[in-house]
Each structure stands twice: as C-alpha cells, then as structure tokens.
C-alpha cells in the first residue's frame, strides 16, 4: 500500500491534510453553507480517519523496517537508516527534505502514531451513555454557560481537531526528519498547536499554563537554534538530495554525525574560551532538557498537565516528553561524542535527581493529575541515567523507557480524565472507596499503576531493570540511590489507590457510570500492549538495539 520511500512522508503529512480539509469546512461554515453540528461531526470524523491513516502508515513503516539491514551508507559507514525520502528543498541554503528512520526513530514513530490515535479517540464525545455525557457536560445543546463550561470535546470542535492534527504532523516529522533545518521546522510546528490546545480548551488556569509552556520551550528552542547554526557553520560540504554537492556547509544530520565522529567539531575554535563542542553541547542539552523535562527545568510540566484537557495530556506525556531524549541522542550523542563523554557524569547526576526528587514530590501531592505529572518527571530520569552510562543495556533501557513510559503514562492520564469527567475534581482525599462504584475502572487503574511502579510482567519493569543493570557498572552509587525509587514509587501509588479506591465508598460517588466505550477504546489497547511488552520486550528491543549499540560504541573510546 505504501512504498518504502514515501511511507514516512504519508505518516507525517496525512494529519495536516486532514487539518486543511477541516479548514475548508470552517470556511464553508463561515459563508453559511453548512450547519454547525454537521461541521463538528465531520471534523471529528476527519480527525479520526486522518490520525488512523497516519497510524496505519506508521505500522506499515514499522513492519518495513529491517533491523538487520545496513541501510543508508554515509561516509563509508552503514547507518541503518531506511525508508528514506530525500530531495532538495531550498538549494540556496543547502536545505533538503530528508526523512528516514533508524531503530530509534522507527520505535518513536510507532509510538507517536499510536498515542495520537488514542488521543483522537479520547477527544470524541461519541460512544458514551447519556448519563455519562450529562455528568461530563458533553451534551451539545448549543447553550454556553460560563459557570458550567462544557466538556472540551464539544467546544469549538473544528478548531480543536485541526490543531490536534497539525500537532500530530509536527510530532511525527520531528522523529523522522534527518535534516537539521527540517527538524527545527517540525519542532516549532509542534509548539504552536500545543499552546492553543492548552490555552483554549484547558482548565481554570489555562492561560498561565499555556504561556509558561510556550515561553519555556521557546527559550530552549532559541538555544537549540543557535547551536544548530553554530554546527552548520563548522560543517563541511556534503551531497544534497539530488547527489550534487552542497555549498560549503550541510544540514544533513547523518553527514554531520559522520563529521562529528571524525572530529570536525572538536577541531573548531573555542567560544569565549570554552571548547566549541562543550558550548554547543550545553546549548543543545538545555533546549532538550526543558522538554524531557529535567530538574530544574521541569516546573512547566505539572502546570501544563493539570490545565490541559485529557487527550492533550496524553500526547504531552506520551510523545512530547520523548522528544527531549530523542533530540539528545540524535544531536548531542550523534554529533558530539567527545562532549558526550565529558557530560556523561553530569547527566547521570541529573537523572538520579529527577528520579528520587520527583518521587518524593509525588508523595506529597494532593491532586491526582499532579501526582502523575511528577511521576513522569521521575520516570524520565531513568532514561537520562541509562543513556549516560553508554552501556548496551543502559542505552537500550533508556529508549525502552521512552516506549514503555509512552504506553503507561497516557493510560494514567486517561484514567485521571475518566474520574475528572465524572466528579469534576481530582483531589485524592475527596474520593474514597471508588472500587465499589467503578469496578472495571478500578481494575484498569490497578493495571496502569502497577505497570508504572515497575511490576515485573508489565512493561514498566523492563526499562527500569535494563537501566539499572546498564548503569550500575558505571555509576554504582547513583544507581543504588535511584533504586530506592522502587520503594517510593510503590508508596505513592499504593497510597493513592488506598485513599481513592479502598475503604468506605464516599456516597457522593455512588451510581457513577463505569467505563464508557469511548474510554475502553482508548485504555484497553494500551493495557494489552503493557502486558505483552512485559512478557516480550524483545519485540521493541530487537528493533532499537542495533542502532543504539552502534551509537554508544561510537561514543565510547
């Protein structure tokens, strides 16, 4: 159905095509040609189809990818990059349209397609009983009461769906772009829809959260852009998409990596007395660290999560946080091996702080969504610690952690959404005994919580275990400190379960409807994946191992 050359392009641009279609409908509505209800329903259907097609393309790409193939050969070395689509975009500036995937990209492409689709399902008011609709404020009766705002899924639907699709294109593109300029474009494209999605469809403090998210990430982007420009002007010429040589410099990430590993950037003149690679490394790293988010740049995350509507939290936790680690691996690790060795210890320290500090903060949270947001901060620390070790198990564990956290944390946010839609608050203490009213919900919650606290047999354990065993030989003390998180994580999750679900039922919540099909359709697939990956993680590891191990080997002396 898809050719090897264009499959990634399809996966990336189908959503934005859906956006354009919705925009046409909106214009038609503005001219009075269409009913509001018809436009709403049509844009929902378009969003579902477009992100579904994008997922299909992502799965097709995953299946086409051969982890054992040598892939694109750059500077005499096999890179393993496949499914390449490459042509000249702006010749004057040496910019190519260059997408392709290695083991690292392809796993995140699949994750991104999957989570986007799940988030789109979670944005629908469909497949819900009347009672649940009434509780959630999803009835589309045309009235707007400022004191009782409607559910986000029935407010300004076409705009929401168009932005959601645009966001999906940005995410997918970031993971497949192999041209620095193209990468930066996608990176920024992703930012803007997110701002509006939080700022318009979010909770009470949405403006504050949206601005904070936007400016914080933009500040990081500026540093990143400077670093990209600096790298560009140090690079040597390389072939463009049509085979002709570029003019003096290159944006081609694979060529840049080959040059970086050959020591081109190491030879560059120092900036302000600091080594060129170190300065560039730090600039890039801060840009990406904000996205991870790494302590102390993490405080935008709880605010953004708490205010964002459920599907946006799902995307934020499931995909956007992964871009930080992805960027570090692609840029810092790929282009600046010497600076990576120099910074490894610091990365491990920050990883350890993330893990333990955020776990303690979780323990003190009163808002369930905030608790889960901080648990994301804690879990992303594992990736930092693992990749800093540069061992095969450590770096594979770090990326495995992206994947498993990308499955588990969307589940967690969906679970928060379920109860928020019914009770309109998230204060842990105000619940109690929910297991009696919502047994099915309790079961799926238990699955997600235990997956997140690293129970063997569920996918969260795999990455934790690999990171520990990979990091231990290199950072023994940090790993032992990090391992205390197995206690803290269990404590904050079980305590939350205890306060919310066990004990006497709070009578206010008797008669709450259990999971609707809308919620089942988003939660169950993720739950199944969490179990399957718990018992067969090699399904992902087999794909990512090759790329990551050669990356780690290129950095180790």
């Amino acid at each position, binding site marked *: 159905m898809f050719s090897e050359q264009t499959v990634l392009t399809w996966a990336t641009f189908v959503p934005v095509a859906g956006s354009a279609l919705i925009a046409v409908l909106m214009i038609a509505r503005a001219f009075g040609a269409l009913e509001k209800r018809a436009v709403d329903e049509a844009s929902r259907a378009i969003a579902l189809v477009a992100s579904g097609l994008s997922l299909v393309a992502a799965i097709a790409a995953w299946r086409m990818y051969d982890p054992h193939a040598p892939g694109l050969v750059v500077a005499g070395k096999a890179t393993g990059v496949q499914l390449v689509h490459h042509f000249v975009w702006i010749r004057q500036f040496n910019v190519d349209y260059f997408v392709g995937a290695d083991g690292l990209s392809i796993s995140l492409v699949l994750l991104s397609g999957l989570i986007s689709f799940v988030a789109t399902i979670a944005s629908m008011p469909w497949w819900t009983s009347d009672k649940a609709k009434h509780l959630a404020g999803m009835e589309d009766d045309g009235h707007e009461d400022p004191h009782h705002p409607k559910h986000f899924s029935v407010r300004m639907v076409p705009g929401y769906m168009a932005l959601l699709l645009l966001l999906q294109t940005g995410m997918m593109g970031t993971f497949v772009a192999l041209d620095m300029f193209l990468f930066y474009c996608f990176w920024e494209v992703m930012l803007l829809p997110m701002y509006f999605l939080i700022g318009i469809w979010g909770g009470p403090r949405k403006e504050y959260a949206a601005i904070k998210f936007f400016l914080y990430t933009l500040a990081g982007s500026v540093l990143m852009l400077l670093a990209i420009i600096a790298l560009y002007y140090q690079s040597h010429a390389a072939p463009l998409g049509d085979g002709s040589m570029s003019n003096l410099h290159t944006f081609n990430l694979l060529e840049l990596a080959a040059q970086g590993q050959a020591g081109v950037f190491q030879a560059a003149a120092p900036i302000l007395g600091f080594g060129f690679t170190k300065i560039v490394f730090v600039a890039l790293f801060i840009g990406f660290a904000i996205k991870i988010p790494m302590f102390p740049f993490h405080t935008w995350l709880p605010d953004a999560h708490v205010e964002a509507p459920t599907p946006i939290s799902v995307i934020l936790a499931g995909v956007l946080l992964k871009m930080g680690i992805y960027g570090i691996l692609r840029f810092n690790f790929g282009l600046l091996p010497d600076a990576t060795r120099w910074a490894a210890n610091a990365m491990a320290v920050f990883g350890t702080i993330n893990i333990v500090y955020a776990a303690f903060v979780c323990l003190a949270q009163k808002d369930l969504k905030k608790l889960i947001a901080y648990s994301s901060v804690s879990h992303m620390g594992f990736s930092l610690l693992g990749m800093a070790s540069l061992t*095969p*198990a450590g770096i594979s564990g770090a990326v495995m952690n992206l994947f498993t956290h990308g499955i588990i944390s969307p589940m967690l946010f969906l679970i928060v959404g379920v109860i928020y839609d019914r009770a309109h608050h998230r204060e842990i203490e105000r619940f109690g005994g929910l297991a009696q009213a919502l047994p099915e919900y309790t079961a799926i919650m238990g699955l997600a919580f235990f997956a997140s606290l690293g129970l063997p*047999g569920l996918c969260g*354990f795999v990455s934790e275990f690999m990171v520990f065993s990979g990091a231990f030989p290199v950072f023994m003390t940090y790993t032992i400190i990090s391992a205390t998180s197995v*206690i803290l994580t269990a404590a904050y999750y079980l305590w939350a379960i*205890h306060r919310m679900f066990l004990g006497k039922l709070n009578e206010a919540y008797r008669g709450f409807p259990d999971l609707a099909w809308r919620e089942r359709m988003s939660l169950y697939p993720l739950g199944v994946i969490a179990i399957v990956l718990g018992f067969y993680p090699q399904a992902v590891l087999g794909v990512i191992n090759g790329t990551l191990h050669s990356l780690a080997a290129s950095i*180790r002396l």
Partner: protein
Amino acid sequence: MEHATRELAPILVHQVSYLWLIPAFPLLGSVINALFGWQFERAGKKKLVHVVAIGAMVCALAVAVRAFLQMYGMDAEHRFLQDTLWNLLTAGRLTVDLAFALDPLSMMMVLIITFIGTLIHVFSVGYMWDDVEAYWRFFTWLNLFVFSMLLLVMGDNFAVMFFGWEGVGLCSYGLISYYYKDKEKAVAGMKAFIANRFGDFGFIVGMLLLFWGLGGGWGAMLGARGAAYEPTGSMNTVASASTASESKALAPQVEVGEGKVVKIGPTLNFRELRDQVVIEKTGVMEHLKEQKLWGIGLLALIGVFLFVGAMGKSAQIPLYVWLPDAMAGPTPVSALIHAATMVTAGVYMVARLNFLFALAPSAMGWVALIGAVTAIFAASIGFFQYDIKKVLAYSTVSQLGFMFIGVGVGAYWAGTYHLLTHAFFKATLFLGSGSVILGCHHEQDMRKMGGLSKYMPVTRWTYLIACWAIAGFPWASGFYSKDEILWKAYTARHLELFGVATPWLGPVIYLVGIIAATGTAFYMFRSYYMTFSGTYRGGAGHHDEHDEDPHAALAAPHHATSAHPRDGAMHAIAKAQEEAAHVAHGHDAHGHAAHDDHAGHGHHGGTPHESPLSITFVLTVLAAGAVLVSLLGIPTAWTHAAPILEHWLEPVLVAEVPFAEKPQWMEFLFQAIGVGAGVVGWAAARALYKDDAQHEALEAFKQRFFAAWTVVYNKYYVDEAYQKVVLAPALAFARLMSWIDSNVIDWLVNAAGAVTRLVANFDGLIDKYLVDGAVTAVANLTLESGRGLRRFQTGRVQTYLYGIMAGALVLVLFNFVIR
C-alpha cells in the same frame, strides 16, 4: 576457609517441553475467573468459579508429579529439567530468557506449592462460600498467586525469579486487602507491599552487584572503576549484541576437562552462575573472593543485599512487621501465602544460591544471627497474643527465623527441610484456626473460645497433631528438622561477622534457638488449651458485645486490685486491649453480612459446630502429611544413612561447609535436650491454661513485671517506632521537597518571567518617551515646516512659472559653478 572439595561437573541439562504447563494452568484459571467469574456468579453458577480454580490446580499438580516421576527415574547428576520459552530481552551481555528449570530443590518446592495449594483451594470452597465479597475475585487472586509462586521457584534465572518474587507480592497485596471496604485491612495490604519493596531494593542491588562482579571490565570506560577481568583474554563485556544468540556467542568459555566447557562472565542464569562459581578450574571463585567494594568483600556485600531481599519476603527483623498485619486477609490466604509458600521464598533463595553464600562467611553469619534473633523475638511476642491468627503469625515469623538459622550456618538441607515440615504443620494450624473461626462464627479472640474439643473433634485432633509437630516431639515432623538445624548451629565454627571470625556464634545461636523452641511449645500449647480445653466462653455470636467484653476480661482482675498505684498504666493497657479487640472485631466484619445473608443457615445458633467435610478432609490430609514428612528426615545418627531429603537435594546443595566433629552421644544428648525443651514449654502451657485456668501466679507475674509485660504485649512498640522513625520523616521530607518545588524552583521560573516583564515595561517607557518622542518631534517639525511653506502654495500659475524659472536658473548656475 579451606575445605575438602569434591570434583564438581557442569550441570547436564535435560531439555523438556512441558514445564511451562505447570504455571500455565493456574494462570489460565486466573484469567478465566478474572474475565468470566462475575458472569458465572451472576448467572447463578458460582460453583463454576471454584471448579475452574481447583481444576487448574489439579492439572498443575498432575504435571508436577509427572515431572517428579521423570526426574526420579534419572541419575542424581542428571536431574535438571529445563524448558525455554522465548528470549525476554537482550542488550549486550545482559540476556534474559523466559525459561523454567526444575532441579531437586525446585521440584520439592513445586510439589509443596501445587499439593498444599490444591488442598487450600479445596478448603477455601468451604470457608469462602458464604462470603459476601466477590467469590470469583478470591479465586482469581489465589490462582494468580500460585502462578507467581511457581514462576519464583521454577525461574531459570534471576529475572524470572524476580517476576515471581514481585508477583507473589502483588497477589499478597490483593488478598490481604481482599476486604478492601475496611480501611484497616486495606492498610495491611499496602504495608505488606511497601515493606516488601524495601526487601526488593536489597534484592535488586544484590543481583546487580553479582552481575557486575562477574563482569568486572565494564568500568573501563568513563573513568575506570572495577578491575578488568579477562581470564581468557577475549571477554568484552560491553560488546554490542542485539539478539540472544549474539549475546550468548560473546561469552568466553573455559575448558573444564572431559571435553566439557563452561561459559564464564556476567550472567543472571542460575545454572551458568553455579557452573562457573563451583568449578574451580574456571577461576571465577577466586576472582569473586578477591574483589572488594567500599573496603568490604564483594561476596559478603552480595550476600547481605540479597538477604535484605529475603528479609522482606520472609518477614525477618526488621522487615517482619507486615506479616502479623497480613492476617487481615481470609484465613486460607494466611495458610497458603503467609505460612506455607510465599514467606519461605527468602529461604528458598538462600538455599538456591548456597554456593555463593558459602563463599561469604560474613554473610552467613548475618543470616544465621538475624534468623536466631527473629526466632526468639517473634516467639516472645507470641506468648501474650489473644488473637489466634496473630499467635500463628508470630509463630511463622519465629519458624522462618529457624529456617534462616539453618541456611545461615550452612545446613542448607536442614533449613530446606524445615521449610517443608513447616509448610505442612503450619498450614494445618492455620486451616485449623480457620475452621475454629468459622465454627465460632468468625470469632478470633481465644478468650471467647474454649471447650471446642467437644464440638469440633476433627479440628481439635489435627490441631493437636500439628502442635506436636511444631513443638518438636519425636515422630512428628518438626522434631527432625528443628533438631538438625540446632545441632548444625552448635557445631558451626566458620561463621564470621564483619570479616572477623566468630567461632562462638554457632553455640550462642544454638542457645537462643533452644530457648525459642521452648517458647514455641509454650505459645502453641497455650493456644491449643485456650481454644479446645475447658468450657466454651463465647456468647451467642452477637458481635455487638465485643466492644465491652475485652474491658470486662481484663478489667476484672484490675478492679480487684483497684488500689494499685499504677492506674495510669492500667488505663493504657486497657486501651491497648480495646484496640486489639477492635482489630479482632474488624476481622470478622464479613461474617456479619454473611450471616445476614444466610439467616436461615444452620450454624447461626450460639454453639460452635464442626466445619463441613471440605474443611475437615483437608485438615486430616495435612495433619497426616505433617507426620509423614518426618520419614524424609530420619537423622543419620539413627540409621547410618543420609536422610532421604538430604540425599535428594545433594545435587543442588553443592556448597561444602565444614562443621566441627562431635561424638555421636553428644548428638543424642542434644536431641534429648530438644525434646526436653518442648516438654517444658508444653508443661508450662498446660499448667497455666488448661481448662480455663485462672492462675493467681499468672496474674501476679503480670502485676510484678507490668512494664515489661506491656512492652511485649504491644509487640515492643515496633510499629509505633516505624511510624516515628521512617514514615513520618519520609512524609515530612516529601512535603519539604514539594514545597521547594513550588516555592523555590517554580518561583525562580515565575521570577524570571516577572523580571522579563519588568524590563519590558521599562523598555516600553523608553520607547514611549525617548524613541517615540524623537519620532513625534520629527513629525512635529515636518508639520510646522509644512505650515510655513504653505504660503508658497498660492494657486496662481504665474507664481509657479517664476518659481520654475528660478529653480532652473539655480540649476544652470550650479552646473556652471561645479564645472
């Protein structure tokens, strides 16, 4: 430590393809009940739930027996069945298969789990049938527990074992919190899981240390840590491998004679670990012994960290606190999980890794010491408990201590044997207590029992037999295992603490052990006499009396001595009693509803009654087992042949631990002392508690040592100490971190935003008055000049013509001048 080593060969693996069925059946049963159990119940086919669950257990037992028969037919050194399913994960030298293995040790465990597990499933039918909670949920968890436990013992490597290790923790959580509507019970489940996680932390670190120790050379990069270990010169531990076969091909091999080779290097596989450590020719043992970390021998560290894991699961000091609380779960759960199987996992792990622990006398010393202290500590708490299940819980903690004495001093088979005998007699005791609780209408307070031998003969006799077994009377199983453990402890001379040789430790442990054994007999027979002898003290089964009763029971003697000067303390103890009663009251909360639902049921009357056949049958089988397993451990001193079980376990327990040679009469003497200890404990209990005895002496003793008695009665206030020393500070720290997060770090972010805004405002002022002012000034100038120049604009053509001519003239002149 020099010891005569026998020549050890690599394990010969016998591949089979059916081992996975043993855990698969309980898993299947659990999944069926999880998905459809509630539908069965709703459709009025409640029976289907336990048919599925018990059917799964019987199938698992059948496959286990088949495996046993196959293994029994093989030569001793070939007894290693393996079944590999698939590769779980691979990254470099870290490769983990989902694989099962059965050797004589895990075979024994599998038989215990499936056999006793099946019986307890049958028991549960009678016990849980009237329960108002979801029947299917109980059996779902119970089957899932058996699955996890089988994974734990059958795992071919640390990772699969850890799957089971955590899985049983999860199921234990689910089953302790089974009556989750009661906050108290839900807390007990949470406590169990979190306390176990402390142990898991130790387990993980121990495992990582071992993996690291075997690999050595990892630290070559990033500022070399750890010496490179390359006995064959080809070991590249950071070599990249993305598939299992690649990874396995990376492992260097050592030829160990007769054409056999052994893989060396980092591994999580028990067999590969054992082969490279026990076969001296590989040099791995020497390498491990030499390595030091933080100034401590690596092997001792590994042993101690792994033992921390065992402490959690097997409820040793200081992590035992969860086990007594775990009695909040239904009684069959206490019997299966908190007596027969899960809590022995730590003992099993130490026995499985006997060859590692034997290399670290310091670790062995710790294991034995902690075991001994736990044995006597828990026994002493058991003396004064009134809740029959609490007595048994502390007894379990104490008996686990005995097992750790065994595996700690190096008597691995004896520790394992005690695990086996304990599984039988403690399961009998717990199920017997369950039968009593059921017969007394969900009463757990022994002060309200009494005289039950008349009403419940089968329960009484089986309970008595199990008491004999645990107290260590000859021909009942506990005698053989406990005696062997204590004898080996006495003769142990190789133990160390902190690397210092402590030959006195063995005899000291023996002394502690024999005192604990006396205590065991005392508290067990105390529970027996309080429950079964004398007259029935229970009411008509009205639970509302509970709140008053304990006051009366304890307050009466106090009132008699109301002039006592220590009224304040009295008040405190009365309060403690009240709390105890409250907990007891909570325990049978489900009983209320069950009885309400079955108001017409025969057993709602005031008198106790014998339990149904499904319960008495199970009790009889287990009690018979408690006697019969003694056949497996008839001491060498009696028959001049190794006990059957020791012989059976020989291929696994390869560690050679030296014991002092002692004359045979001494062994007989020690056996007599052991029996004597049991008799003393029994006699004391009989004198004090038989036939509702209210002894002045006992009261006098209480009065005299009131402070000490209060401390023991309140379990040495360990829970309170944990609350103050661990929990409260951790929560306070968490709150502090959270405060810092929002008031320091986020404040900085917002401050940066505010400063930017301030600068922007300042910038705005500059813009408005300076920059824009200049622009305005220019504009004004233009306007003004325009106003002035307007006068020239007259509208008369002649004037313009003059102007043009003047301009042209100027240009001509200008041109002329420039030239």
